[in-house]
């Protein structure tokens, strides 16, 4: 036993324990996510014959070249996705934070009201999409309400100008309550005495929020932003059901593009090339966010 891990110092056993604790999750992620992603990288360098899917040819970067030069939709879908993600993450994070603040205040039945806000995430996305699609119909309930207050009916999902924003609203209705939960957990973790100190230093509620609460919420906030980015980057069900990527490709999210490519049209190589690009873009964004949201504490 003596000095077996001497090079690591007193805390050496942590290495072994850490290893053991990580192994299950590591294997799960390795086999369920990372290896399939690796296969996608390999496949993206090949082209499978349509008529004989078993036959595959090494084509180098041809698939990528196709995506960037020939594909009529890929670049557009990347752009649409980036816009969607940026807006949705911003909207959802801000709203979720506001709700988290509201629902950590003292009030009657607060936990019950909070649960109601959380409820939408539990409804199958496909059904939520139907409900909102119905509500946003030209003659739907939202337009009826708008007309009541004197605003003309809007086309919402039927217009290439409004469709993306409509999907943002739907995605936010679904997600906001969910992200709120993490922020509530984070808010609860901020020590009271630090807030006390700020109050004595003369900080009002707003000041305390921006100078104390927000910086100390950085870790959970970083989680929400990163997780939300990834989740929305990969989100496509509402758009697939409601708009099929339209009108005029305005809601053609890149995951929908991949789904169509791989499942509907059976062009696996091209889909894999897209997956690789999505992964690269996503990791770049996440790395950037990590950098920006690193907490000092």
């Amino acid at each position: 036993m003596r000095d077996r891990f001497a090079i690591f110092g007193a805390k050496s056993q942590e290495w072994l324990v850490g290893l053991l604790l990580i192994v299950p999750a590591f294997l799960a992620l390795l086999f369920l996510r990372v290896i399939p992603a690796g296969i996608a990288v390999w496949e993206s360098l090949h082209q499978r014959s349509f008529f004989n899917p078993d036959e595959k040819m090494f084509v180098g970067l041809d698939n990528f070249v196709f995506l960037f030069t020939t594909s009529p939709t890929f670049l557009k879908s990347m752009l649409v996705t980036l816009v969607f993600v940026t807006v949705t993450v911003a909207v959802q994070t801000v709203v979720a934070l506001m709700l988290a603040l509201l629902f950590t205040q003292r009030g009657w039945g607060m936990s019950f009201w909070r649960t109601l806000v959380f409820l939408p995430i539990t409804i199958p996305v496909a059904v939520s999409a139907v409900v909102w699609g119905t509500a946003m119909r030209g003659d739907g309930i939202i337009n009826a309400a708008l007309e009541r207050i004197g605003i003309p009916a809007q086309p919402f999902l039927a217009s290439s100008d409004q469709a993306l924003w409509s999907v943002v609203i739907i995605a936010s209705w679904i997600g906001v309550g969910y992200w709120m939960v993490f922020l509530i957990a984070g808010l609860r973790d901020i020590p009271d005495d630090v807030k006390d100190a700020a109050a004595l230093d003369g900080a009002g509620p707003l000041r305390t929020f921006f100078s104390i609460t927000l910086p100390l919420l950085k870790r959970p906030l970083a989680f929400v932003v990163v997780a939300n980015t990834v989740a929305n980057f990969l989100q496509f069900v509402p758009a697939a059901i409601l708009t099929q990527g339209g009108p005029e490709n305005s809601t053609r999210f890149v995951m929908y593009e991949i789904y169509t490519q791989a499942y509907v049209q059976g062009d696996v190589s091209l889909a894999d090339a897209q997956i690789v690009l999505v992964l690269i873009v996503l990791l770049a964004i996440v790395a950037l966010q990590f950098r920006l949201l690193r907490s000092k504490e």
Partner: protein
Amino acid sequence: MGAIPRFATVLFTIAGICVALLFMLPVIWMLTSSLRPNAEIFAHFSPLTWQSIVPETWTLSNIVGLLGTGFGRSLLNSLIVTVITTTLGLVMAIMAGFAVSVLTFPGRNVLFAFFVVGFSVPFDAVAVPLSAQVREVGLTNSFFGLALAGLGNGFAIYLLRQFFLGIPRSLAEAARLDGASWLRVLWSVYLPLAKGPIIAAGLTLFVFQWQAYLWPLLVATDPKMQVGPVALAGLVSLSGVIDFSQMFAGALFLSIVPAGLMLWLQRYFVSSVSRSGMTG
């Protein structure tokens, strides 16, 4: 805090109710729609009247009809699969989250980066090759096979890491000196102090699995293994017509379980105590 006027409490309560209502409106509409005949659902949008929300004819036939389609069984399947995923996934995530946040060892950050890559991989995109492998090892039509998709959840690990980092390290040190093994430190110190985040992580796993749709389609070919969301989507007829009232009834049934769970777990979201045993 001293000196908080009482009317603020009233104000916050009202705000809370308003927000909750706003989020509930679509759900309420679903609820009432599931209690009215299919034809009536879309009849009263414009202009807005009370009938848009309140059914003219109340009927339970949608719900009764729904239960006749074996929906109950699917719900039960969903529950079993989700419990498996949540339990196993949570155990794995807690262990890994603890390791990458509390323990210090070489390669820790590399491992964490690996987890980040892991959760950036779009699952829908790798589901097909994965389902082929699951089929090869003979896990199709098993609850475990269904649960597998949710197990490799890097999000839960990342989430727990973020919160574990917020627990003062000296607590772990005190426990170590008290003779606790690292597992014991995890069990006796970190778990009780991170109840809220652990519930949040559990919810992540729960919701992922509860909403799972594509994966069950790929690996659960036996109708006896059908899960709720798939059963719900099956209410669409050949020519694309949907029995909306039945679908809404089903959706509501599907959300009862997680909503109830959330309501029950509320009380563990108590104010954090993680720093209250110390100075500085």
